[in-house]
Every structure is written in C-alpha cells, then in structure tokens.
C-alpha cells in the first residue's frame, strides 16, 4: 500500500526538497493536506486525495458559462473562484456577432488558464488548439484531487484509454473530463474514469484498468 500522510506529519528535515502539498517551518517539512507521499531524487510531494481544484496558469480546464457580460463570459470552473473569459480570448468572436450567440449560459467549454492575479481573479483563454466549445460527447466529473491518476505517469493512463477504446478524451485539471466517440465505448471509458477515481491511492492501477477495459469490450461484442 502506498504511504498516506496527514496534515502536520513531519515528512522531511530538508527544506530544499519540499514540493507540492507540503510546507516548511524552520528546517522542517510537513504535509499540509491528506495525500500520497511521493519521494523522487531531490523532491518530496504529497499528491492530494481530497480537495477542491485550485487553478494554476497553463492548466487545461473544462468550465460552464454562468454569465454573459458585455466584455466576455463568466465561467464556473469547479473551484472556489469563477473564471473570466474575455471577448478577445475567444477566437469564435466576430464583429457584429452577439456574445450569447457565440457562447450562452450553460454552454460547456474547454479552455486554458491564462493568468491569475494575487486576489485569485482567474482569466482563461480559448486560443489554444485544444480549446473548444463542447457541443457533443459526455462530460464526467471526478474529485479534482484524483486527476493526476487519470492522466497517469507521463500520460500513460490516458494513452491506454485512447488506444484501447478509440475515444477522444480531454482531462480538465479541475476534475471535469470530456469523452467523445462511439457511444458504447464512451460508456466504458466513463466507468474506467470512475474506477481510477476510486482506486487512486492503490498500486497496480494501470494493469487493473487495462484488464477491466478488455473484459468490458468482450461483454459488449
């Protein structure tokens, strides 16, 4: 079993190695969240098992438009903070086209976090090629803390799902995941995502997922 640590657990006496999920006081490094303790060559970190999504610049996220303003859109990104998508950051904006014809309340989008100011006002952009308005496929929601496991080491888990099921998959760092493709295969992919979420702290997950997919495909064919 992987080592789970709790806030306040002393995990190192070398402040130089302190990574994600830790904090330093004096020469001591403590965990600040509940998570899996991970040690690399010169860094230690705590991979969260619970908690809300806290945006960081460059993150790919999936959001839902909550408000159409005069200069852009307010977007719920499943975090303590709403994000703002300015007019100029949406390539679909055209002169003369009304804002709510481009994106309306309730529309889902894939976007990237462009900037965050010190007061946590989040600006997002749709200029990257991965970004789009979502008009088909399925969106599933998982605990944002488990996103790293769905992606896997260097994207291994996503690659596995894509190659085994031939579905499109975009994992938002904020815990929302877009799946698109054959309806039955998307259904399997959704189950797989939940399986990973449930077993995020366990070992041998990739093998179990691979086996699960193959078994499901057999049942369907």
């Amino acid at each position, binding site marked *: 079993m992987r080592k789970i640590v709790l806030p306040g657990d002393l995990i190192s006496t070398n402040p130089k190695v302190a990574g994600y999920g830790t904090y330093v006081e004096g020469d*001591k490094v403590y965990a600040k969240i*509940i998570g899996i303790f991970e040690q690399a060559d010169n860094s230690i970190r705590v991979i969260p098992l619970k908690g809300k999504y806290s945006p960081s610049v460059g993150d790919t996220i999936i959001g839902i438009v909550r408000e159409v303003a005069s200069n852009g859109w307010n977007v719920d990104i499943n975090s303590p903070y709403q994000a703002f998508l300015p007019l100029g950051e949406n390539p679909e904006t055209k002169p003369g086209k009304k804002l709510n014809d481009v994106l309306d309340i309730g529309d889902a989008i894939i976007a990237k976090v462009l900037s965050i100011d010190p007061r946590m006002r989040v600006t997002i952009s749709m200029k990257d090629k991965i970004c789009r308005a979502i008009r088909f496929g399925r969106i599933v929601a998982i605990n944002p803390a488990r996103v790293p496991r769905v992606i896997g080491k260097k994207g291994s888990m996503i690659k596995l799902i894509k190659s085994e099921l031939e579905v499109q998959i975009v994992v938002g760092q904020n815990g929302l995941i877009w799946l698109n493709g054959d309806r039955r295969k998307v259904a399997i992919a959704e189950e797989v995502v939940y399986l990973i979420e449930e077993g995020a*702290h366990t070992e041998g997950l990739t093998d179990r997922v691979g086996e699960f997919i193959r078994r499901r495909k057999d049942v369907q064919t």
Partner: protein
Amino acid sequence: MSRPDKFIVDGKRLDGRLPDQLRPIKIEVDVLKRADGSCYIEMGKNKVVAAVYGPREAFPRHIQDPSKVVVRYRYNMAPFSVEERKRPGPDRRSVEISKVSKEAFETIIMKELFPRSVVDIFVEVLQADAGSRTACINAASVALVDAGIPVKGMLTSVAVAKVDGTLVLDPMKEEDNFGDADMPFAFLIRGGKIESIALLQMDGRMTKAEIKDAIALAKKGAMEIYNLQREAIMKQFVEEEE
C-alpha cells in the same frame, strides 16, 4: 440530577473510569455526501456531526477578505439534544463556543492560499453529554482534513475537570455540573507531538500547580484521541484497498 456525595470511590469515577481515562470514542469519516468533508463522532453520550464546505465563494460579498480565506464556525444544538427541549437557534453559550472554536481553527487553516473565499465549518450536536464543544472540535478537525483543506496540522480537543480535589480527564455530566473546575483545551498536533494550545478556557477554582497538572493530563488524553482521529481517516483507504 443532583450532586453526588462523592465523585470518586475506590479510585474510580461514577461511570467506573479511572481519573485519567477517556470515555469511549467512535469516529466515522466522510459520512455526508453533500459536504466537502465530514465526520461523525461519539464521545461518551455526545453525538455530533461536523461538515466542512469550501473553500467556496464568499457570500454576501462584503464578508470577503481580498487577502485570505474567511473561516466561519457554527456550533448548534438540536432541540432534542438535551433533557429539556432547547429553543432552536443560537444562544449566548453557542455564540461564545462558536467564536473560540473558530479562532482555534483559524490558527491551523492556511488562510492566505484562498483569498476572497470562505471555509464553513458546521457542527450539529445531536445529543449533548458533557464536553460537547470538545467533541465538535475533534469532529471538525477530521472533517477539515477530509475536505482536503490545507492545514498546519490537526486539532484535538479534550477537557479536564476537578472533582473532590482530583483532576479527571474528559468529564462526564455530573463532574461537569457539580465539579470544582472545568478546563477545555484544543491542541495543535504536529509531527506526532502536541505543539501548542489553540483553545483554552477555564472556570471553577484551581491553583497554579493544579493548572500545570491539568495541562499534562489533557495532553495525555489528546494524544489518545489524536490516534483515533488518525486511524479513522486512514480506515477509508484501507477499506477501498480490499
């Protein structure tokens, strides 16, 4: 309830406990679906449930702090939680308990990580015995960890009372009502050790030396409770593994 003639007979307390013994404790984690973190605790006959929501957007907006998260704590007793029906809503006692408990949690929550947002801690006392505020803090502490909120460490709370000149850990109702003093604590526990005091109240009559002894006794009890809190949190992951 009337005042017992003696609180300690043959070294044992009215409920059979030794002076330095806690009441039985039961802790369950993640008991509520809607909350971001939750915990149910029984400490003696206390039955309390804690829920943590957040960090989430702070409303009404004027309560927002541009530089850090706002912490709210609501201690509430259900009308049926005590012998005689309690009128619903906050009374002065609940207001005070909520205030000092909130301040205790403010010492461990990493507030600057979530400006403009709020963390709500709600604790409901479903059945009150003595020491409901300590049970609530223990539950809230677990619920905060369960919500994945960044904190310095865990809070563990316990009271010490003085009866018949003897200090007793985790007082029961009779000791609380008729004892000579009552002293609730909450400690910050870090690196497996009690580090400092996050909540402290006292009423009754104690000498300087007795207070020193009371702290030592409370620390002993708090470590035992801390281990149970820890065990309860870890248990969810062991079960999933099977």
